[in-house]
């Protein structure tokens, strides 16, 4: 395998970046046409597999349509991952601009005048404004779809989703093409059309791997998919990992053969890292800091929360420079000739680390005082009998906002504990550890925390 892996990698790195995905699929289709590229609906009775041979044929079919019609651009509107992969691979090799747009960002495609549409049937069709020819270039105000190679919608964690332009270089910049990553099995719990999701399936299919897509995000379904498909790499948000650890059948957890967990999308806390090491001894845990706009900025591999304090103010290998604003907002400069970007993420120095305290937009203001929901959540999660917690601001005519929390109880509850005793313990713990304005004034028990399509806990205030 190692010599074939070396051969695969050298042939792949020889081709232009935009062509790489299609080339990787072709190489596998020629050498191992029946090998599984994608497992869909994993962990359920509807499980189905797509072999590299079939995937390569689908790429070719799309390419023929693109070559014949030369659309100005293609909006990929698939719900099925194999159709999405075929579209992205084909557009790359045919040099057709591409927009990968998630379900909830469909209204943004109005900006993509005269782009063609490809859905699950992989038949090129006209969009609402018809198909424009590649030749007619017209500059748009919001961005320039004529020169954009790949357009991805942001997750909207911190505002309404928006379209962001990327090049093939930036889309593939984080993919690791080395033997160490060859032929592995990856779990995709992210939305395949979002930045985080594209990074997972691109990495899997560029390295002769298998992509495993669970039928749902329910913890037991995800756990079954990991066990049944021998998944070795689990990319997830801390929220999704926490749910897996606290809610999946423990018998399934012990059967997992995970080698690596890559966390991203939200800040990771020390408690979760400790629980992860306890559940999966020896697993490597990496925390990736990335945004849709910037791509991957840095990764932390030492298994600790936050990042080393000495990284701040220094140019890191790769050219990234991190600084903070006076209020603790993290600023990122990707390289010397790019502008500094405010990330909206707040960091705070704790001993030899900078740890994430939350997003600037998540801050709850109670009577003029700031409350960082993450800090309150960390304290709640430390209470015996509490599996998970979400803290949010409730609008109040008197104090502006009020701190409220949703709590998921551990199952089973600790011996002798009742929901009422846990509620009382949670309030006492918060009163001891927090200022009065930071202590939750409403504690509700919920079965599950609401998780958005990006696998994160939504933060915006909600009333009751």
């Amino acid at each position: 395998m190692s010599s074939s892996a070396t051969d695969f990698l050298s042939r792949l790195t020889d081709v232009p970046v935009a062509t790489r995905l299609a080339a990787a699929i072709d190489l596998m289709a020629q050498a191992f046409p029946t090998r599984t590229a994608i497992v869909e609906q994993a962990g359920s009775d509807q499980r189905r597999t797509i072999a590299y041979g079939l995937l390569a044929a689908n790429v070719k079919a799309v390419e023929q349509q693109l070559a014949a019609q030369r659309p100005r651009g293609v909006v990929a509107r698939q719900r099925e991952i194999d159709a999405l992969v075929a579209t992205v691979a084909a557009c790359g090799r045919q040099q057709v601009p591409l927009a990968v747009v998630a379900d909830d960002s469909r209204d943004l495609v109005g900006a993509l005048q005269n782009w063609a549409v490809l859905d699950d049937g992989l038949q090129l069709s006209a969009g609402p404004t018809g198909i424009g020819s590649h030749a007619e270039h017209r500059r748009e105000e919001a961005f320039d779809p004529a020169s954009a190679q790949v357009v991805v919608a942001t997750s909207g964690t911190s505002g309404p989703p928006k379209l962001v332009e990327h090049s093939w270089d930036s889309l593939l910049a984080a993919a690791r093409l080395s033997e160490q990553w060859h032929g592995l099995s990856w779990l995709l719990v992210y939305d395949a059309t979002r930045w985080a999701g594209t990074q997972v399936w691109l990495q899997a299919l560029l390295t002769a791997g298998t992509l495993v897509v669970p039928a749902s995000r329910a913890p037991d379904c995800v756990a079954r998919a990991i066990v049944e498909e021998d998944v070795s790499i689990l990319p997830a948000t801390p929220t999704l990992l926490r749910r897996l650890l606290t809610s999946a059948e423990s018998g399934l957890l012990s059967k997992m053969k995970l080698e690596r967990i890559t966390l991203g999308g939200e800040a990771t806390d020390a408690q979760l890292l400790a629980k992860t090491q306890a559940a999966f001894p020896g697993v490597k845990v990496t925390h990736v800091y990335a945004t849709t706009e910037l791509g991957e900025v840095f990764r932390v591999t030492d298994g600790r929360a936050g990042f080393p304090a000495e990284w701040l103010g220094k140019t890191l290998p790769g050219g990234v420079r991190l600084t903070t604003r006076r209020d603790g907002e993290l600023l990122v400069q990707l390289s010397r000739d790019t502008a500094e970007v405010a990330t909206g993420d707040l960091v705070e120095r704790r001993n030899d680390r900078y740890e994430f305290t939350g997003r600037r937009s998540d801050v709850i203001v109670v009577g003029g005082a700031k409350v960082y929901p993450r800090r309150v959540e960390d304290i709640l999660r430390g209470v015996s009998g509490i599996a998970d917690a979400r803290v949010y601001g409730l609008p109040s005519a008197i104090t502006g906002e009020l701190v409220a929390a949703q709590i998921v109880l551990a199952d089973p509850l600790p011996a002798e504990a009742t929901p009422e005793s846990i509620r009382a313990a949670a309030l006492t713990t918060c009163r001891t550890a927090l200022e009065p304005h930071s202590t939750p004034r409403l504690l509700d028990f919920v079965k599950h925390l609401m998780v958005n399509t990006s696998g994160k806990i939504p933060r915006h205030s909600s009333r009751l």
Partner: protein
Amino acid sequence: MNASLLLAVRKAILTVLHDTGRSAQAVESDHLLASDIGLDSLDLAQAIVLLERELACDPFRSAGSSPTLRMRTVGDLVTLYEAALSPTAATLPPVLDH
């Protein structure tokens, strides 16, 4: 004074006292919210949210009324809900931010 509203207000205030680790005490309509019962603005904000859940009504969000001016006693609070829940309250501007 509406007895069931007084009960609801009393229950909300007792929950606030309980949740914040204070002991239960008598809550009568002539008691001053701040100096007799010891409620601060956070306590009051919590009581309002609890009452909204109980009564499906938040008089503080009915634009046009300026309820904070006359809210010194438990009875003031009850009167406020009485007004907001009475049929004539329909003449108030509708609640906008649901």
